[in-house]
C-alpha cells in the first residue's frame, strides 16, 4: 500500500525513555551498538520522573538527593551527548516473538525489525475497580499518579479535603504535596498493619504534618452523587474483613488511591511472554533476558522497584546483555546462556556484587550490611523529652535510631549504619531540616509550571513560611534547569532553583499554547 511504511531494520529497539529505557540505551551505545532507537509515546522524554518533583532520587547513584526532573536530565543529557535517537509520540502497539515492533506515530505507521528489543515501559497504577470499593462513582476519585500529574504538571488543584487510600510512596508524597499547597489531608488509610511506602516518606510526608495514619483500616463506602461527599472507613480484622461497629464517616471531597503499581505488560503478553505471578512482570534470567531470545525487560516493567537507582542499575545489566546477545548472534552463536554469562561478567567487571541465580543483582548499599554503630555525644537539649526511636530519612535504608540520655550527661545515639544517621538524629532533635520542593507558575512558557527546590535543606518549621514567600512569585519563560529563581530564601542560606527547563512558547504573550504532539 502506498501509505505503508517499509520495514526498518535496527540492531536495538528500546521501548520507553524513562530511567530504565535511557540507562539501557546508554549501556547499549557504550557497548558499541550504534544502530539503535528509543521509542517514547509521550511528547516529552524522561518517563514518569518529570512529574516527580520531590527529592530523594539518586541517593545511591549520586549520593545526593536529586529531584525527579534532575535525575532524568542527567540521563537525557548523557543520551543526547551519545547521539541516541529518541522518537517522541511513538506508541508501540504490537510486538511479535521474532522482535518485530509495530508503531503508531503522527508520521505514520512504522514497522521495525529489531536484533534485540528492550522492554522498558514502566508500570501503571492499580485502579479503583481492581480493589472494588463499594459506593458511588462521583468526581473526586483519582489515582495518586494522576493526581501528581494534574497538580505538578497541569497546575490544577484537585480538592481541599482529602482522604488517601493506600500508603504507597506516591500517595505519601502527594499527602505532603497537597498539604503544602493548602489542602487538608484528613487521613492516610492503609489495610496492612504497616505503611507501604519507605520510612523516609512516612516520616517527612505524613508525620511531619501530623496527618492521621489509619493502619489496618479501609474505605468501606464512598458517598456523593456528583462529587465525593464523604467516605466511611472501617477497621479490618486479621482476615481483612471490616469489623462491625468500627465504621467512621469522614466528610471529604477527594479520594486519592495509592493501592499499588502493576508492571505495564500489554506488549509482553502480546508477544507471548510468560509473566511472573509474584512480580507481574516477564520471567527473566539474571541478565534480564525474557524467555524469548533477544527480548530483555528492565525497570518497573520487569518488577516494580522502590528506587530509581535500582531501576538504572538493572537497565544497565539489560543493555549490556542485549549488546552481548547482538555480538553473539552476529557471530552465528545465538544462545541465552552465553549472553547471560557475558552480562554477568560485565556486571562483575563494573564492580557489582555477585548475581543471585535467576534474578538480577539486588542493589546493595555500601552501608546496608554494616553493623549498626553507636555514638556518645555531648548532651542534647530538647524542648520535649527525647523520643525513644527515630527513623533516619537520609537514605532509603531508613535505619532505626535509638536516642538515650546517659548518666554522664551525654546522649547516646545508636542504630545508624553511617555517620549521616548520627547527624540526622542531632538535627532531628534540635532543628529538623527538610528540602522543600514545589512549583512556580510560568508566563509565556510551553508548560504552565516549573518545578523548583531549595538548594539545601531548610528548617522544617520554616516550610510554611517559605511556601507563602514562594507563592507570590511568577517566572517568565524561558526558564533553564538550575536557574536561581529566589536567592537566599528567607535568609535561610538556601536558594530556590528550577529543577526543569521550560522553553518559551512559540507564540508570544500566550501562556498556555502547547503542541498537541
Amino acid at each position, binding site marked *: *500500500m502506498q*501509505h505503508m511504511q517499509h520495514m526498518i531494520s535496527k540492531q536495538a529497539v528500546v521501548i520507553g525513555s524513562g530511567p530504565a529505557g535511557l540507562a539501557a540505551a546508554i549501556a547499549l551505545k557504550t557497548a558499541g551498538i550504534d544502530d539503535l532507537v528509543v521509542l517514547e*509515546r509521550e511528547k516529552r522524554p524522561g518517563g514518569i520522573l518529570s512529574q516527580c518533583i520531590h527529592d530523594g532520587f539518586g541517593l545511591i547513584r549520586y549520593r545526593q538527593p536529586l529531584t525527579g526532573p534532575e535525575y532524568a536530565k542527567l540521563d537525557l543529557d548523557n543520551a543526547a551527548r551519545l547521539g541516541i535517537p529518541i522518537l517522541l*509520540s511513538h*506508541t508501540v*502497539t504490537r510486538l511479535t516473538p521474532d522482535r518485530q515492533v509495530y508503531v*503508531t*506515530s*503522527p*508520521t505514520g*505507521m512504522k514497522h521495525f525489525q529489531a536484533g534485540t528489543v528492550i522492554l522498558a515501559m514502566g508500570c*501503571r*497504577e492499580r*485502579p*479503583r*475497580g*481492581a480493589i*472494588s470499593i*463499594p*459506593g*458511588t462513582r*462521583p*468526581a473526586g476519585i483519582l489515582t495518586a499518579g*494522576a493526581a501528581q*500529574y*494534574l497538580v505538578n*504538571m*497541569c*497546575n*490544577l*488543584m*484537585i*480538592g*481541599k479535603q482529602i482522604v488517601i487510600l493506600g500508603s504507597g510512596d506516591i500517595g505519601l508524597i502527594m499527602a505532603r504535596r497537597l498539604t503544602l*499547597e493548602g489542602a487538608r489531608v484528613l487521613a492516610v488509610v492503609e489495610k496492612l498493619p504497616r505503611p507501604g511506602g519507605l520510612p523516609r516518606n512516612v516520616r517527612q510526608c505524613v508525620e511531619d504534618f501530623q496527618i492521621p495514619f489509619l493502619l489496618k483500616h479501609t474505605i*468501606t*463506602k464512598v*458517598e456523593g*452523587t*456528583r*462529587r465525593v461527599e464523604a467516605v466511611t472507613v472501617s477497621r479490618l480484622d486479621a482476615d481483612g474483613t471490616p469489623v462491625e461497629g468500627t465504621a467512621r464517616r469522614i466528610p471529604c471531597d477527594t479520594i486519592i488511591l495509592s493501592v499499588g503499581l502493576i508492571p505495564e505488560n500489554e506488549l509482553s503478553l502480546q508477544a507471548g511472554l510468560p509473566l511472573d505471578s509474584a512480580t507481574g512482570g516477564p520471567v527473566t534470567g539474571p541478565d534480564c533476558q525474557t524467555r524469548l531470545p533477544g527480548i530483555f525487560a528492565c525497570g518497573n516493567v520487569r518488577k516494580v522497584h522502590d528506587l530509581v537507582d535500582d531501576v538504572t542499575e538493572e537497565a544497565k545489566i539489560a543493555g549490556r546483555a542485549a549488546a552481548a546477545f547482538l555480538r553473539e548472534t552476529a557471530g552465528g552463536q545465538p544462545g541465552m546462556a552465553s549472553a547471560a554469562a557475558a552480562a554477568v561478567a560485565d556486571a562483575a567487571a563494573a564492580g557489582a556484587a555477585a548475581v543471585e541465580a535467576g534474578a538480577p543483582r539486588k542493589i546493595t548499599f555500601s552501608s546496608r550490611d554494616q553493623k549498626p554503630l553507636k555514638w556518645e555525644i555531648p548532651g542534647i537539649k530538647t524542648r520535649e523529652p527525647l523520643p525513644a526511636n527515630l527513623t533516619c530519612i537520609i537514605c532509603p535504608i531508613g535505619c532505626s535510631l535509638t536516642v538515650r540520655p546517659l548518666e554522664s550527661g551525654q546522649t547516646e545515639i545508636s542504630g545508624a549504619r553511617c555517620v549521616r544517621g548520627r547527624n540526622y538524629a542531632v538535627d532531628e532533635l534540635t532543628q529538623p531540616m527538610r528540602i522543600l520542593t514545589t*512549583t*512556580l*507558575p510560568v*508566563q*509565556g512558557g510551553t508548560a504552565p*509550571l516549573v518545578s523548583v527546590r531549595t538548594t539545601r535543606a531548610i528548617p522544617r518549621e520554616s516550610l510554611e513560611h517559605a511556601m507563602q514567600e514562594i*507563592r*507570590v*512569585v*511568577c*517566572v*517568565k519563560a524561558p526558564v533553564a534547569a538550575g536557574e536561581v529563581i529566589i536567592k537566599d530564601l528567607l535568609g535561610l542560606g538556601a536558594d530556590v532553583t528550577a529543577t526543569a527547563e521550560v522553553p518559551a512558547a512559540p507564540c508570544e*504573550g500566550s*501562556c*498556555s*499554547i*502547547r503542541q*498537541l*504532539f
Partner: protein
Amino acid sequence: MDHLYDVVIIGAGVAGCAIARELSRYRLHMAVLEKESDAGMGISGRNSGVVHAGFNCTPGTLKAGMCVEGCRRFEAWCRELGVPYRKTGKLVVALGNEDLAPLQALMDAGVRNGVQDLRIIGPEEMREMEPHIGGIAAMTSPWTGVTSPYELTIGLAENAHANGVEFYFSHPVTRIRREGNTYRIQAGEQMFRSRAVVNAAGLFSDRVAAMIGDDTYTLHPCRGEYYILDKRISALLHRPVYPVPRPGEGGLGVHLTTTVDGNVLIGPSAEYIEEREDHGTTREVMEQLYQEARQLLPEMERKDIIRDYAGIRPKLVGKKVGGFGDFIIRESDKNPGFVNLIGIESPGLTSAPLIGEYVADILGQRLPLAVRPDFQPVRRPPVRFREASDEEKARLIASDPAYGVIVCRCEEITLREVLDAMNNPLGVRTLTGIKYRTRAMMGRCQGGYCLPRMVELLQETMGLAPEEVTLKGPGSELFSGRVKTGTCTCSTCST
C-alpha cells in the same frame, strides 16, 4: 424566549431519543429536556446492552410484541445509526435439575411470542458452544444480540439533532402547567411552551406525570449492580450466558454478558431501594455477584474485575408482588397531547425502535405529521481507529497526523477521535461524554493514564477553565481551581 414547540420530550434516555429521532422525520419543532449533562446518563447507559429475542416477556403484552419485533429490526437500525451491534446469540443455562422445567416453560413462552429458532440443547452441544461454562442443559437463542446502549442513545440523539431537534442538557423539569391547548414546562431556569409533551423521564416518569395531575403511577426503584471484567475474559465467552430466571425476582438473574467492545459484564443483582438515584455499589452484593458468576464461569478470577457500577430499574411492580409489569405508553386521560411512558425497564432498549413509532402514532392523532423530504436517516459512525486495518490506519494518519497519536493506550484511542468527540454536535464537554463517545478511560487502567490528558485537551482545545472541567455536568467539577496563581505584574500577561 418561551417559543412554542410542537413536541417537547422530557428525558434523553433511549426511549426519549428514539422518539425524538422517529418524530424528526416530520415537520415538527421539537426539544428534548434532560436533567443530566448528556444523553443516556440514566437507565439507558447502565444496563447489559443485550438486544433480547423476547422469550422473557409474558405472551400477549405490549412488551412481548415490541421486543420480538424490535430485535428483528435492531441490526438494520444500528447500521443506519452508525452504532455497534453484534448478533451473538445467547444461552440460558440450567445449573441443576430443578431448572429444567422452568427452562422448558421459558422456551414455550418464547415460541408463543414468535421468537424464532429457540432450541434446548444438551451438555455436549453446550460445551461445544461455550467450553468454559458450567450447567447441565441450556436453551439457545440465536436471535439475541448485543449493542452499546450509551452509544446507541447518543447516536439517536445526534441523528435527531442533525434533523433539527434541539437538546437542552442540565435542564431538570420542575413544573408543568396546561394552558388551553398548550403546555408550559419549567426546566432549569427556562420556560418551554409546547403543543404536545412526551414524558420519557425513566426513573422519574411517575413524578413528571404527577406534575400534570396523572398521579396514579408509582415506580419502585430496583438497583442492579454490575462488574466489568478485563478483556482477557472475553476469550472464555462468546455470547451472553444467563441462568434460568427465578420466579418473583426483579431481574433476569445474574448473568454474563459479552459486550460489543470485548469486555464481559457480570450482573445485575436486583435489590429494591428507597433512593431513586443511589447508584452506589455494596460490599454484600459485589461479593454475591462474584460468587454467582463463578458458578457460570468457574475460571474467572477476582483480578479480572476492572470496574463496578449500578443501574436502577423503574419497576411498576413492587417487591411484594415481584416479577415484571407491562410497559405503560399512553396519552393522559385528562391531558390531550401529553403522552406518558411509565415503567420502561428491560427490554426497553430492544423495544426502542417500536417505542418511537408507537408514540408517533399516538401524537399523529393530535398533530399533523407531514414528512420532511430532507430527513436524513443515516448517521455516519465515528472513526474507530482500533478496528481499522494497518493499511487504513496508515491512510488515516496520512490524512491527519492526529490519528497517529494514541491518547488512551488501553483501548488504542487516538487524539483525532478524542478531539472529534469533544466537538460532538450535542455540545457535551464532560469527561463521561468523551468516554461514552470514544471508549477512552474505559480500559483496564480506567483513565489512570489518559484522564489527565483528556483534561489538558479540554482546556487547550475547548478553552475550558479549570472549574469548567466536569465528570458529568454541574456539581461534578474536577478541580477547585489552579494550584498556583502567580501575581505577575509584567506587561505581557494579565493573569
